[in-house]
């Protein structure tokens, strides 16, 4: 009897998706970007959109939200910084190991809807590992130069030891439609300017874009805040600005409460947010 009821119970929930259940995926390749940042290429067949994230778990250690930093036929990539207990565990994994994922989650950069177009210009401003969530977007426009008129990238890093995606950065720097500024906060190195990203925003010729442009900003909260303010000082209307938030999340599906800011759940309405909304969120 009990067995039957159990089966009945199971049947009732068969159609309900267990949204917390991760699936195993094989690690195909590991790139050591820096001493503290590795990129993991993981087998993955389904679609993802630029700017989305996955909940990445290492059994027995824990789960955390990680942005997709790259993608291709049959794989996605995650660039992970060695901080905290979870990410430490990831660094012990190697090619052939299993990584548990669930996702993809969240709202993406509005590429087709807003960013792309033969007359459109895109300005990307990133701080540190913030380059990871815009990497797929940068590569999309690198691969489809007809989709954009020009792309300006200001990528800032703390110092040379934190510089990511060397191959990509080199190819972007040489691309016809790309204008790149790579900068280190407080030190000098060949190929890099010096100073915070905010110091370079005035170099972007916003007034030549004929109003056809958008700005994507990703990085630590103060960096995004001051970059947006600097853009607006340069005459950028706030509705041309988009940001991506990084928050603590335990579920990524609107339940655990960690990422909530006022009535907004970053996991559901973000992580990519239109600045007019983002600036209205008060922690």
């Amino acid at each position, binding site marked *: 009897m009990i067995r039957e009821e159990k089966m009945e119970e199971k049947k009732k929930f068969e159609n309900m998706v267990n949204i917390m*259940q991760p*699936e195993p995926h094989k690690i195909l390749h590991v790139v050591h970007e820096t001493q503290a940042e590795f990129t993991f290429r993981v087998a993955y067949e389904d679609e993802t959109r630029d700017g989305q994230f996955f909940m990445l778990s290492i059994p027995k250690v824990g*789960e955390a939200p990680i942005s997709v930093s790259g993608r291709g036929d049959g794989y996605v990539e995650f660039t992970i910084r060695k*901080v*905290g207990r979870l990410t430490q565990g990831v660094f012990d994994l190697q090619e052939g190991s299993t990584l548990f994922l669930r996702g993809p989650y969240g709202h993406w950069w509005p590429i087709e809807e807003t960013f792309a177009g033969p007359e459109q210009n895109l300005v990307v401003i990133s701080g540190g590992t913030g380059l990871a969530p815009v990497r797929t977007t940068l590569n999309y426009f690198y691969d489809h130069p007809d989709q954009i008129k020009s792309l300006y990238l200001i990528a800032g890093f703390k110092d040379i030891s934190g510089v990511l995606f060397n191959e990509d950065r080199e190819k972007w720097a040489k691309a016809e439609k790309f204008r790149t500024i790579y900068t280190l906060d407080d030190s000098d190195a060949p190929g890099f300017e010096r100073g915070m990203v905010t110091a370079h925003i005035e170099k972007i010729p916003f007034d030549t874009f004929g109003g056809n442009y958008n700005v994507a900003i990703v990085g630590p909260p103060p960096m995004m805040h001051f970059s947006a303010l600097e853009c607006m000082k340069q005459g950028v209307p706030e509705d041309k600005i988009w940001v991506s938030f990084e928050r603590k999340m*335990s579920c990524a599906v609107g339940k655990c409460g960690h990422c909530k800011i*006022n009535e907004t*759940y970053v996991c559901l309405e973000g992580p990519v947010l239109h600045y007019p909304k983002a600036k209205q969120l008060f*922690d």
Partner: protein
Amino acid sequence: MGYQIDYEAMDRILEQLAKDYQIFAPKWDRQKKNVRYGIIRSIAEVVTGRQTDFSIKEAFYPISQVMLYFRADNVEEEELKDPRKILILCRPCDINSIRRLDKIFLENGAPDYFYARLREKVVFALLECRKSFEDCFCVSMQSNITGDYAFALRLDNRDGITAAPILVQVADAAFEEYFAGAEAADFQPEFVTENKKIMHAPEISRADLKEISDLEYWKQFDDRCIGCGGCNTVCGTCSCFDTSDVLYAEGKSDGERRRVWSSCMIPTFTETAGGVRARKTPGANMRFKVFHKFYDFRARFGEDNMCVGCGRCDMRCPKDISFFDTVNGLTEEIRKMKTGGEPESK
């Protein structure tokens, strides 16, 4: 139908019900020395003279809940061990608090599987609540009345030394069979109609949010609140959780993932792996909690405020911070903010 029934007969009914239901009710926890919802076998175990220290939610949203088991290369979900449904004897405010939890777990994004499969089993039996306790403000929060119950019981019908019979109203016809043969009686449960405490809920609008966020008012909690999270733990509407993975033995690949109640008042609630905290002070955490209970939830789901006015958080706080006073104080601060500090007109 209404019935009256003595305690012994009620116990026999509970015995019948227990075949189909795990029966939870407020009972004395000898170890923890408090009143919590626990499994009862006899109606005499039910504590009616005081409010429970913990809310009803632990009956189907456990403090620590296993979700998944990890094997070497796969993940299996935890199966439910008890096939029975869940019957909870509780007060109106607690029943109303569950409607708030339902919003988060079932309507905010896709439904939560682990919550839904237990929640679906839950049936309420109303413990009539006629007299407000000291810390209650359910009437202000409009959570003093409910119609969501299978049957209602009056247990406080004691007359001097002799215990008068229990009065029963069966609202769900499916439960009539359990009471077949009992003596008929007229009984409609009454509800609390006034509390000593009156909550003047603040009217927080989107346009005022920034200014209210920036009030000096919140800073008083930086010195007072110790961030223990006790208020969240006893709250019937707090739903936040952390997940944590447990390894069965060092070097073994088997383990489990649990979710455990969390608290927006603890300092690390918003801390990301790199150690950055979105909210850094107890005052900011208090503001977050007050906003959630009196603005965010209503703004998102468009109905009631989240708080049901059970007053448990006020009973629990080890630093004697009253949430009731905090929110009423905020209402006054907002009034001052809007009138430029003018005293209230009489």
